[in-house]
């Protein structure tokens, strides 16, 4: 069993009004040293495949086809083997 941890974030060129609102709220809490905020999505995929390469191949395809919209988002992921339970 393998665990894929996937992060999807907006490309830098994409306006993210939610992140701007979050940053403004931080400033209202007096965390005025926060200069920028980026918001993203985090996914954990448990994959019942034989090898780390299989897990990476499938995770890559899932990111391309579903988890990220290549027009506005980028993704990165790490795959690790889970200890037998």
């Amino acid at each position, binding site marked *: 069993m393998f665990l894929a941890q996937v992060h999807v974030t907006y490309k830098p060129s*994409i*306006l*993210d*009004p*939610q992140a701007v*609102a979050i940053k403004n709220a931080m400033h209202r809490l007096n965390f005025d040293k926060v200069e920028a905020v980026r918001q993203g999505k985090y996914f954990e995929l448990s994959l019942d495949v034989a090898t780390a390469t299989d897990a990476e191949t499938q995770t890559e395809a899932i990111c391309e086809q*579903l*988890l990220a*919209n290549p*027009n*506005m988002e980028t993704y990165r992921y790490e795959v690790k083997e889970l200890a037998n339970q």
Partner: protein
Amino acid sequence: MMKFAVVSFPGSNCDEDLYYAITDDLKADAEIVPHTSDNLEGFDAVLIPGGFSYGDYLRSGAIAKFAPVMAAVKEFAKAGKPILGICNGFQILTEAGLLPGTLQHNREMQFICEPEPLMVNNNQTLFTSAFKAGETITLPIAHGEGNYYCDDDTLAQLKANHQIIFSYQDNPNGSLSDIAGITNQAGNVLGMMPHPERAVESIQGGTDGLKVFQSILQTYLRTV
């Protein structure tokens, strides 16, 4: 009689409005087609309604693009038949790759529900032939994610091919180039954020939207 398919996903909420606009105002035939259907035989046009398909989970339209009916919608597009996606329908068509670009969150964060003045940039399409060139019309918008975005090459291509069909006169959401509606390169797939089905009777505040459906019908009648 021309027959429209109104595709309905879990979370669509403008499907009944579209059905009503086609049957009661345009006086054409319509049928609501569930997302589980894999067959669009017998239909002359497909309408993808607004709403919040699959709860807007992941991204607007991201889950709907894998619904069984979408394979048939893609075949329908390939055959050159008319497809109109409105609001969430536009978002679904971009996610499905039938239209370029994407719809981001509105620039100012609010969900905007207002009548919006629009320019008809191109009346030489099957969706706009009943309008005058450069006509200014008013249609309601109702969206939180209608801020159209695409890369520079795509935008240049949209402009060169006259694919920007409707543009905002007073850009409400931050859309690139004031874009409110675009077609694909072939011109048979239109996506638009404003709601023509909410402007088909004077009691709704205007009837400019009816001309979109009349254009589709007139084009159809010329070809049969």
